[in-house]
């Protein structure tokens, strides 16, 4: 098959650009440990209220022994529960989400935190929030007539402030 010399050059440039992007992503993955979320874990969405992890009194923030924080939330039409959370900045956060009804999505604007929450599965995403402030937590997967009103709040404060709030016991009661 004859390919014109000029076409070869154009194809080479296009492939070179694609190769550059892939190389940067691979370098991030191999040398900086940046990977796409890949947790696969099932759960019975009809029995969340009876589960050991997502019963109502287990939701919210949990401090781990290594200093990281696990956040457990339930998404259901039309809200994320607990409705209000206070989280520490510059701390490794593991978000664990489940849906009690239909497919939802969760997105925290101005961060990279975004994932789909599929009934029957636990959506887990790890991240670090660098900037303190108030963030809305929005559903970005159409889930019904009230989808546009499905949101909650996250307040990110400095780690020292968060420790003080948690010592007082008033930080994460939703």
């Amino acid at each position: 098959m004859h390919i014109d010399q000029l076409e070869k050059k154009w194809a080479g440039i296009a492939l070179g650009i694609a190769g550059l992007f892939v190389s940067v992503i691979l370098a991030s993955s191999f040398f900086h440990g940046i990977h796409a979320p890949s947790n696969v874990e099932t759960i019975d969405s009809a029995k969340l209220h009876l589960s050991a992890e997502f019963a109502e009194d287990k939701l919210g923030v949990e401090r781990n022994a290594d200093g990281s924080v696990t956040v457990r939330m339930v998404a259901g039409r039309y809200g994320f529960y607990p409705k209000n959370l206070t989280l520490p900045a510059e701390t490794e956060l593991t978000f664990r989400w489940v849906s009690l009804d239909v497919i939802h999505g969760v997105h925290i604007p101005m961060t990279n935190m975004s994932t789909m929450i599929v009934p029957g599965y636990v959506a887990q995403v790890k991240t670090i929030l660098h900037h303190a402030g108030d963030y809305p937590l929005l559903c970005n997967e159409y889930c019904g007539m009230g989808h546009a009103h499905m949101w909650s709040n996250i307040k990110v404060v400095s780690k020292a402030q968060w420790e003080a709030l948690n010592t007082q016991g008033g930080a994460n009661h939703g």
Partner: protein
Amino acid sequence: MSNLSEEERQKILNSSPVGTWALMLIVSGGMVFAWLLMYYGVFLPRGHIG
């Protein structure tokens, strides 16, 4: 109708497409710059997810 002579026409056909290369350079350079800016300037500073 083109007013080019056969000689001029052949000269254009056989010469390097400078305008195309310039356009290609600008577009691809802009795309690479924008991509790197989004990746290193926006995505990574916001805290990667995993």
